[in-house]
C-alpha cells in the first residue's frame, strides 16, 4: 500500500469520531440522493408507462391543420380539427412500418350544462368502446353501473368528474338502471341526506368547428375509474362516438349529414321534462356563448342512427401505439416526413406534447424533487467541508512537520483526498446500497394512493421508485462530486501549511 494511503487510512481510524460523523453525513446524503433519484426515475418511467398505456398511446395523429399541439389537454377550448376521411386513411396509416396499432377517436373540450346554471368545462373522449378497451388494455374500472355496450349510446362518467359535478351542482351522478347507494357514497354526499338530488343523464355542449354550439343529452351508463392516474386522467369522461360527433357537430360538415339535420327530433327524453328546467333563469348570468344556446334550443338534436356515423367516419384524433423498442422522437420525425410525402393530411404528435399541462405538472414535481436533492447535496457539501476544514486546522503542526522533513504539497493533497475518498467509498457506498434496498423495499410494498399530487409523484397509483444502472451511476457521480467539492477547501488549507507551522513558538 502506498504510504499516503496507509497514513490516510490510519488517520481515519485515529480520528474515529470525526470520521464517523463525516461518514454518517455522507451515508445519509447519498441515501437521500439515491432515493430521490429513484423517485424521479420511477415518476418518469411510471408516468410514461401509465399515460402511454392507459391514455394517450405513444403518439397521436391529428389533422395537419391543427395548430395547437397539446391536443389532449387544450386549455383554450378550441375543438380539434376533424379528420373526415379516416376510412380512406386507415390502410395508409397502418402501412407505416413503425406503427403497431391505431385507434380513431374524438377528443374535445365541452361544457356541462346543468340546472343551476353554473357551466362546468371538461374533456370528453368519444370512442368505440370495444376497440378502446382493447387498445388501452382494459384501462377502466367500473365503480357503478356498467361499461358501454357495443353501439350503445351514453357516457361513462369518471369518479373524478362525478365528484366535480357534485361540487358544482349538488346533485350526485348515478348510472341509469341503478339506484343511489347511501352506504357507499362519500361523506359529503351523505350529509345532504334525503334532500340529495341524483342525476342520471348529462347535457354536454360542444363547440363545433363552425363555432355553433350543439348539445347532447346522454345517459350515464357507468361510473368509471382509470386504472392508473385516475385523478389526472379522470378529467375525461368517455362517450360513444356517435354522441361525440353530434356534440361536436361533425355530421354537419359532411355531405350525408344534411339528411340528418331534421330539427326538433325527440328533443327531450328521460329525466328532463321541458327545456325550461334545463335552462332556467339563472342561466342568464352565464357567458354569451352559452346564452346563445337558449335561443337555439330548437337546434338540440338527438340522433339515434349510429349506422350513419360509421359511414361518415369523422374523428379528430388517432391514438397510435408503436412497435416495441423504437425511438419515439426519431419515429415521430419519420412518420411526419412520410405523411407529408404521401400527402396524408395528418401530423404526428408525441404523447408528451399531446398531454401538455399534465406533463408539465410532472415536470414541476420532478423539478422540485430535483431541487430537494440538490439542497441535500449542498448541505452535505457544506457540513463535510466544515468538518474537514476543522480537522485540517487541528493537524497543522503535524503537517507542518511533514513538510519540514521533505514532504511535498502533492503528497499532503493525495493524503487528504485519500482520506475523504476512503470515507465516501465506504459510507457513501453504504448509503447508496441502503437507498437502493429501500427503493426495492418500497417497490415491494406497493404503496398505492388516490391522492392527486402523490399519484403524479408516484408516476401512477402505486409508488414504484426505480433504479437502473444509469441512475446508480448518477448517484455515484453525485457522491464523487460531493467528495471533490467538499475537499477543495480543506485541501487548499492543507496545501497552505508551511514547514514553519511545525515550529513551536512561545
Amino acid at each position, binding site marked *: 500500500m502506498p504510504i499516503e494511503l*496507509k*497514513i490516510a487510512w*490510519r488517520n481515519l481510524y485515529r480520528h474515529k469520531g470525526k470520521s464517523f460523523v463525516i461518514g454518517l453525513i455522507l451515508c445519509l446524503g447519498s441515501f437521500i440522493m439515491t432515493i430521490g433519484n429513484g423517485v424521479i426515475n420511477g415518476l418518469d418511467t411510471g408516468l410514461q408507462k401509465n399515460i402511454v398505456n392507459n391514455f394517450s398511446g405513444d403518439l397521436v395523429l391529428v389533422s395537419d391543420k391543427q395548430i395547437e399541439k397539446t391536443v389532449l389537454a387544450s386549455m383554450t377550448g378550441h375543438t380539434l380539427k376533424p379528420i373526415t376521411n379516416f376510412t380512406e386513411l386507415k390502410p395508409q396509416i397502418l402501412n407505416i412500418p413503425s406503427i403497431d396499432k391505431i385507434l380513431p377517436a374524438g377528443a374535445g373540450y365541452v361544457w356541462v350544462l346543468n340546472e343551476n346554471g353554473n357551466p362546468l368545462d371538461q374533456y370528453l373522449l368519444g370512442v368505440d368502446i370495444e376497440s378502446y378497451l382493447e387498445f388501452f388494455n382494459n384501462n377502466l374500472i367500473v365503480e357503478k353501473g356498467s361499461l358501454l355496450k357495443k353501439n350503445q349510446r351514453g357516457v361513462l362518467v369518471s369518479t373524478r368528474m362525478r365528484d366535480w359535478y357534485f361540487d358544482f351542482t349538488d346533485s350526485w351522478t348515478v348510472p341509469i338502471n341503478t339506484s343511489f347507494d347511501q352506504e357507499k357514497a362519500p361523506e359529503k354526499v351523505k350529509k345532504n341526506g334525503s334532500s340529495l338530488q341524483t342525476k342520471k343523464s348529462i347535457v354536454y355542449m360542444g363547440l363545433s368547428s363552425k363555432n355553433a354550439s350543439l348539445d347532447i343529452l346522454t345517459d350515464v351508463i357507468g361510473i368509471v375509474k382509470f386504472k392508473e392516474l385516475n385523478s389526472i386522467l379522470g378529467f375525461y369522461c368517455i362517450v360513444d362516438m356517435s354522441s361525440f360527433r353530434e356534440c361536436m357537430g361533425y355530421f354537419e360538415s359532411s355531405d350525408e349529414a344534411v339528411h340528418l339535420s331534421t330539427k326538433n327530433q325527440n328533443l327531450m327524453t328521460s329525466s328532463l321534462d321541458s327545456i325550461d328546467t334545463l335552462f332556467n333563469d339563472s342561466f342568464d348570468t352565464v357567458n354569451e356563448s352559452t346564452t346563445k344556446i337558449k335561443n337555439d334550443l330548437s337546434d338540440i338534436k338527438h340522433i339515434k342512427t349510429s349506422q350513419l356515423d360509421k359511414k361518415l367516419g369523422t374523428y379528430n384524433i388517432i391514438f397510435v401505439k408503436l412497435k416495441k423498442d423504437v425511438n419515439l422522437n426519431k419515429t415521430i420525425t419519420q412518420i411526419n416526413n412520410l405523411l407529408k410525402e404521401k400527402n396524408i393530411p395528418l401530423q404526428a404528435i408525441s404523447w408528451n406534447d399531446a398531454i401538455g399541462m399534465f406533463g408539465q405538472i410532472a415536470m414541476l414535481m420532478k423539478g422540485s424533487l430535483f431541487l430537494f436533492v440538490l439542497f441535500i447535496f449542498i448541505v452535505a457539501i457544506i457540513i463535510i467541508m466544515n468538518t474537514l476544514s476543522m480537522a485540517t486546522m487541528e493537524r497543522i*503542526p503535524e503537517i507542518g512537520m511533514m*513538510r519540514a522533513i*521533505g514532504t*511535498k504539497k502533492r503528497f499532503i493533497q493525495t493524503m487528504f483526498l485519500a482520506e475523504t475518498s476512503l470515507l465516501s467509498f465506504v459510507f457513501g457506498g453504504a448509503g447508496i446500497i441502503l437507498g437502493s434496498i429501500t427503493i426495492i423495499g418500497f417497490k415491494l410494498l406497493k404503496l398505492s394512493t388516490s391522492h392527486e399530487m402523490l399519484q403524479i409523484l408516484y408516476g401512477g397509483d402505486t409508488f414504484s421508485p426505480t433504479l437502473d444502472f444509469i441512475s446508480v451511476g448518477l448517484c455515484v457521480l453525485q457522491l464523487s462530486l460531493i467528495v471533490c467539492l467538499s475537499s477543495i477547501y480543506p485541501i487548499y488549507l492543507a496545501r497552505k501549511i*508551511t514547514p514553519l507551522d511545525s*515550529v513551536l513558538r512561545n
Partner: protein
Amino acid sequence: MAIVELKNINKDYYLGKTVVHALKNINLKIEKGSFSAIVGPSGSGKTTLLNVIGCIDKSSSGSVQIHGNQIDSLTDNQLTELRLFNIGFIFQSFHLIPVLNVLENIEFPLLLMNKYSKQEIRQKALDMMKSVHIMDQKDHRPSELSGGQRQRVAIARALVTDPEIVLADEPTANLDSETGAIILKLMKDLNKTRKTTFLFSTHDPEILKYADSSITIRDGQINAN
C-alpha cells in the same frame, strides 16, 4: 569545507506597525563534520536562525548557501527536496507521525526520496534503529514511547537519509536533564561515528559542554567566540 554559509542575513518580523529585527546582519559558516551549538537566552533568535538555515523560513535579506546551493531562487518543491536530501531535523517536541510505528517513522523520509528499494529502505531503517538503541520499540506507536525514546526515533529519522547537516532546535528542552544528557551523548556519538554535521540550539549551559564549538546569539546578533 563549509556546509552552510550565511552572509549578511537579516530577518524582520512585522507586528502591525512595529518591526522586530529577529536576526541582524548574521555572517556564519558551519564546517563539515562539526558539532556546534547556538546558545542564547529565550527570544534571542536561535529558532529563527535555525529556520533560515533549514530552508523552512526565508531571510529578509542576505544570502544563504547550503552545500554550495544558493537557496533564494529555489521553488517550494526544490526547497522541499533540498530539505529531504540534505537536511535532517530534530524538533523540540519530537514531532513524529502519530499513526506510524517506530520503524515506519524512520522509513518515511527514505520512502519520500524515491531512491532506494524496499529492502534497502528496511535495512537502512533497521541499522539506524540499532544505532539509536530503539530496536525493542520497533513496532510501537509514538504515543507508546517515553520522551527520550521519541527523541531517539526523531534522531534516527533525521539521520537515516545521511543528510549534510542535522539541525536540532532545543532537542532536550522537553526532556529531563538526565535524558537530555543521554540524547546529547548519542548525538555526539553519531557525529563521531557517521561524521554527520550537527547544529543544535540550547539555552542550557549543561548541554553546551558537549558542543565542540558554540555560537552565542543575543538580540539577533552573533558574538563570535
